[in-house]
């Protein structure tokens, strides 16, 4: 077998792979679209305000891990305290910050040390002190030794007094009715629902004042706008459909609501992985299915969390490298479910999807570019095959991005200015020429790093939402 034959073989394989992946994405989009439509119709007849009036809503502990967030933590906590919900507490976990995070909180909220009971039902790094605000009754701050985000969340779970907990990032902003809407499935079927995830939107460029998003805008930076479109694709076109099949394997660590007891039963967040959010959700699925319990893990498009995304390629690369490692870890630690009919659609569809598409597609894509370019040069691959690959790898990517953008526009219309819409339209096209390919390289490296055993998070620099 000579090189040309090898290139031909690879080209057929890669083209077939891309075709099947594209069919899957299209099917997922259609499922998501129908589900979003149904959701929007139902939402017309049930407003969050009704939940606000009810006395039967389950209380929620909002857990906000904070590490070196002195620039934004006070504003974030203010915005959390303004959430509209009948009964909730905010627990900020200061994870051994080396900057002035704790001091900023003590000063802003008149914190005082209390003898609060701390049950470490999930083992954590030692807790140094628990503070209660003298001004705001439902604010607690835990000061603990550094242990990472997972460890912080576990400490928050141990301290919380509510049956549900909501994990968010300390530098994110929740909309006022986000708790109301994310808790809604628990009201509908409390005994079944185990976790719900909300929509994460990009805050960069938006007008934000006192922890509230006043005006939604694009940022003027192409890198950020590409990420806006990516988030639409991932959340609206992807997670909505997977949620419908009860195959949602990831709830964003930036915004998720969980029932506390099943999480404790599952052992809490693992602190030896980088993708602790996805790993927990996969483990919850596994635990519930092993126990043959009826359950749901859902994604909802209404409750919104605004978060800051990387504005430099360097930080973005670190983030995507980490996400890819987290994905590989989560799949690896729960590999017993892969292709296992005992786990139903989860084992037979969702896990293979995440492995073969989300995890391996960067490697296949890069290989594809190499194979088809080399093949064309050596006349081993014909022009039609090359064009077909280009269509599937790039043109279809543009179209799928446009579909996600239109879906967002039809359902939510969060970008009122025409200028922003046009910019996002352009981003949906341009991201497929260079940006996506670069991220495929980054993700492929992430996979290699995971194989080599790399564990570090990498520094995430933030400008702070203001």
């Amino acid at each position, binding site marked *: 077998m000579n090189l040309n034959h090898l290139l031909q073989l690879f080209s057929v394989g890669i083209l077939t792979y891309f075709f099947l992946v594209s069919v899957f994405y299209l099917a997922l989009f259609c499922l998501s679209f129908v589900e979003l439509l149904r959701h929007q119709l139902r939402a017309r007849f049930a407003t969050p305000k009704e939940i606000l009036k009810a006395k039967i809503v389950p209380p929620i502990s909002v857990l906000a891990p904070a590490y070196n967030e002195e620039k934004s933590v006070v504003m974030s906590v203010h915005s959390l305290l303004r959430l509209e919900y009948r009964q909730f507490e905010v627990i900020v976990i200061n994870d051994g910050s080396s900057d002035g995070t704790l001091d900023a909180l003590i000063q802003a909220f008149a914190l005082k040390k209390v003898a609060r*009971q701390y049950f470490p039902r999930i083992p954590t790094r030692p807790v140094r002190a628990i503070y209660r605000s003298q001004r705001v009754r439902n604010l607690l701050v835990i000061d603990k030794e550094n242990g990472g985000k997972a460890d912080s969340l576990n400490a928050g779970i141990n301290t919380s007094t509510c049956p549900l907990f909501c994990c968010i990032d300390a530098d994110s902003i929740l909309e006022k009715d986000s708790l109301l809407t994310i808790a809604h499935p628990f009201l509908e079927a409390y005994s079944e629902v185990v976790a719900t995830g909300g929509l994460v939107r990009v805050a960069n460029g938006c007008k934000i004042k006192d922890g509230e998003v006043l005006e939604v805008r694009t940022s003027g930076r192409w890198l950020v706008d590409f990420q806006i479109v990516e988030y639409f694709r991932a959340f609206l076109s992807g997670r909505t459909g997977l949620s419908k099949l009860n195959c949602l394997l990831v709830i964003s660590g930036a915004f998720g609501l969980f029932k506390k007891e099943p999480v404790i039963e599952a052992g809490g967040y693992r602190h030896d992985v980088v993708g602790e959010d996805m790993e927990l959700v996969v483990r919850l699925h596994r635990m519930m299915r092993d126990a043959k319990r009826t359950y749901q893990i859902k994604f909802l498009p209404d409750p919104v969390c605004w978060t800051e995304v990387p504005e430099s390629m360097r930080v973005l690369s670190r983030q995507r490298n980490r996400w890819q490692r987290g994905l590989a870890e989560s799949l690896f630690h729960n590999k017993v479910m892969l292709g296992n009919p005992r786990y139903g659609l989860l084992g037979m569809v969702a896990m293979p999807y995440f492995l073969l598409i989300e995890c391996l597609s960067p490697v296949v894509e890069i290989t594809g570019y190499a194979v088809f370019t080399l093949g064309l040069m050596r006349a081993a691959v014909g022009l039609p095959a090359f064009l077909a690959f280009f269509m599937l790898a790039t043109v279809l990517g543009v179209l799928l991005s446009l579909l996600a953008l239109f879906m967002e526009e039809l359902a939510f219309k969060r970008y009122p200015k025409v200028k922003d819409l046009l910019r996002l339209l352009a981003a949906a096209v341009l991201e497929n020429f260079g940006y996506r390919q670069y991220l495929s390289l980054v993700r492929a490296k992430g996979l290699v790093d995971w194989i080599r055993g790399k564990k570090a998070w990498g520094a995430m620099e933030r400008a702070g939402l203001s």
Partner: protein
Amino acid sequence: MLVGMKNIPSDPLLTLVIHASIVLVLVVAVLVLVLLVIKFVVVVYDRDVAKAKRRLEPIFEQFVSGTAPLPAALTGVRWPLRGVLQYVVIHRSFGAEEPALKRIQSAYKRLGFIDVDHRRLKSLFWWVRAEGARCLGQLKVRGAKPQLLRLLGDPTLEVRLLSSWALGRLGDADTLQPIIDALAKDSRVAAMRLSSTVFEIGPRAVEPLIRLLRNPDPAQRLLVVHLLGELGDKKALPSIADRAKSDEDKEVRIAAYKALGTIADPSTRDLLIAGLGDPLWEIRAQAARGLAPLGSSAAVRALARCLEDPVWWVRRNAGEALAKLGEAGKATLLKAQREAPSQMTREIAAQWLDELESPPAAL
């Protein structure tokens, strides 16, 4: 397609994939175009609706605040603006009192919208039926009662909920039984919506609900106990107390103790104190919670014993109740913090003493 390229054999699979890819890309491109067209239509429609509303609202407002009959500018409105006019009328009815409400209702009827809503109730699409029920409920159309009662058997929850809400708006207590029959086994959301229905009916709902406490279905009794607790009418206390003592369903008993705590009448103090010794921890926890606003030296002594309860929720609620029982409660917590043999008890007492020292909540 591959023939003619040097050294490249034709591959049927490759050809198939190429052709399929072209079809796939075309399908997705068509989808994008369809969505683009829909977006364009929505933008134009929204603009036209906004323009129509700006024109119709002042005319309708003038009608509502006057005594003249409906002007031709409104009666002459044709499709598609009739849809806009209907919602101008509906929105004007929010918060409207007599005599404005009567004017709005008469306009709604005169403009033929009641007939439109009646037809909607028979639609194949659940969201149209739900919307019809909502509009009829908002305008308190009594003539819709039989159809709304029929819709309580609708297969879609939203339709049942809105029909029950609309029936509540009509204010007839005799609709409670069919509403509860329709919603008892549904979600908490149903129970929550039922609260608003019951509040719409008001005090006249209490007697029918008390009678429903004898229903053989525990799901219904559970729902009714919740509702009576929310209504807070003391006439229901003997019946709720009866359910608390002797209902065969555990959840109903727990809900009954919760309702007693919510109503917080001194006549139930002894029953709540007795509940602190119940074998079920949920009842002990609810009883502890319920004693917070009632207070008495017997309650303080009983709550002090609950600080030693093996279940955290019971200790927590007992601590909270003591924290709210003034000096006697505080003294009990102090004593527990210093002298209790169990660390759990000392810690929960310390926790609630910390709470007492915090100033009242302020945002």
